[in-house]
């Protein structure tokens, strides 16, 4: 139980070995079936989720019903609508399970308890936050300026084995291209390597 989560706390928050035993008292695992929503537009996101096992996507729907995927989260990823959690504002996004999954929901209280176990919690949390901002900036920049091929290459660098777990249309949606463009990109890559 909590194997990935425990490892995550040890690596990212330098929680020490004896305190690891306290983790099961702090948090609870939640089993989620594929297709379950953790968040829908209009709701206020109450948690940051740690993915112990499985796969989720965070997306919005445009007026014409087209899905735009902002993020995938598989094992060891944190997933949340941070704006909604922090500012207590209604979310614009869906979070949906792509696979049967296990996750650990965390709220302020749990973060406070973890902080007690982590000597430099604020500093480490800040690093994670800036990492997230860096990732978002890169993603905005790629969507504004990069070719479909460049975006695809960055996608497989970030999520090397994700395409084994998701349908092709989700890849195209994440990249902001049509399935036909995705097909062209793959064809070009195959013929040039």
């Amino acid at each position, binding site marked *: 139980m909590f194997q990935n989560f425990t490892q995550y706390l040890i690596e990212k928050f330098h929680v020490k070995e004896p305190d690891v035993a306290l983790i099961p008292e702090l948090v609870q695992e939640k089993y989620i079936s594929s297709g379950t929503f953790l968040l829908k537009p209009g709701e206020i996101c109450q948690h940051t989720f740690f993915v112990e096992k499985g796969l989720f996507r965070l997306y919005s729907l445009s007026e014409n019903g087209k899905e735009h995927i902002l993020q995938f989260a598989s094992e060891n990823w944190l997933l949340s609508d941070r704006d909604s959690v922090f500012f207590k504002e209604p979310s614009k996004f869906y979070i949906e399970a792509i696979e049967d999954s296990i996750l650990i929901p965390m709220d302020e209280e749990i973060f406070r308890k973890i902080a007690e176990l982590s000597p430099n919690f604020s500093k480490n949390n800040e690093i994670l936050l800036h990492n997230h901002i860096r990732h978002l900036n890169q993603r905005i920049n790629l969507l504004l300026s990069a070719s479909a091929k460049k975006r695809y290459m960055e996608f497989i660098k970030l999520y090397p084995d994700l395409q*084994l777990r998701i349908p092709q249309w989700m890849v195209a949606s994440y990249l902001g291209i049509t399935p036909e463009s995705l097909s062209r*990109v793959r064809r070009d890559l195959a013929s040039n390597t």
Partner: protein
Amino acid sequence: MNTKNIELIASPRAPHFVGDGFRVHNFIPSGFRMDMERMSPFIFLDYNSKFNFPPSDKPKGVGVHPHRGFETVTIAYKGKVAHHDSSGGGGIIGEGDVQWMTAASGVLHKEYHEEEFSRKGGDFQMVQLWVNLPAKDKMSKPKYQAISKDRMGTYQLPNDGGTIEVIAGDFKDVIGPASTFTPLHMSNAILNKGAKAEFSFPAEYNTGALVIEGSIKVNDLEVANTDHFVLFENAGETFSIEALENAVVLIISGEPIKEPIAAQGPFVMNTKQEILEAINDFNMGKFGYLED
């Protein structure tokens, strides 16, 4: 000849959906004592026990996905499956048919309920087996063997006892149409109530029987009911099955491929490095392209 005894009779595990069209119980490799090494060359067995799908305008199934390093064998008992692949191939697997796809170096394919079946709905019952390939053949060229029911080798049991339909390998002097890379036997025993059939395979061959219909008595000893899998010991050669009611039983037996196995999702290779290469080749479009 010594008797091949039962090692265990596995009940079907809780079903899960593959895509939205296949409601399966996994026996290999997740079943008790039935991991890839133990069952080699049979490294995967998903069984869609008889399940009634309601009519659907949009065919249910599983979208585009890759395979490398093994063969997929799809046996249709009820319902029909349509399939397409990245080399332009495709077809329909009807009731009683078998599709033997050698993925080998790699294909993308997708499998759906056949359109007319989907529109009407009905009982659906399938087996998908993965047969491992030896290292020297893992990167060979992909190919298909579409084996329709009328091409199966057939052995008529005496006294109107039923038929052994041989898919691969042999039963007595009847040879199955499928060509295989390593020695293995695969057949459907279609038995009338009270009929008995005796099978004989080398002791070291990994051997099992999946009860598709009815119930059987094995070695005059133990009863195996519908949807149960009988695993035999790697000792002794012969075993018998007797139909307690009209029965259909899938019999598999194969020489183990004694090579290391590295598996991740739809790739089964010999080393972790080869798995990473498979993922990279797939990401880089080298498995070709197929529309969703």
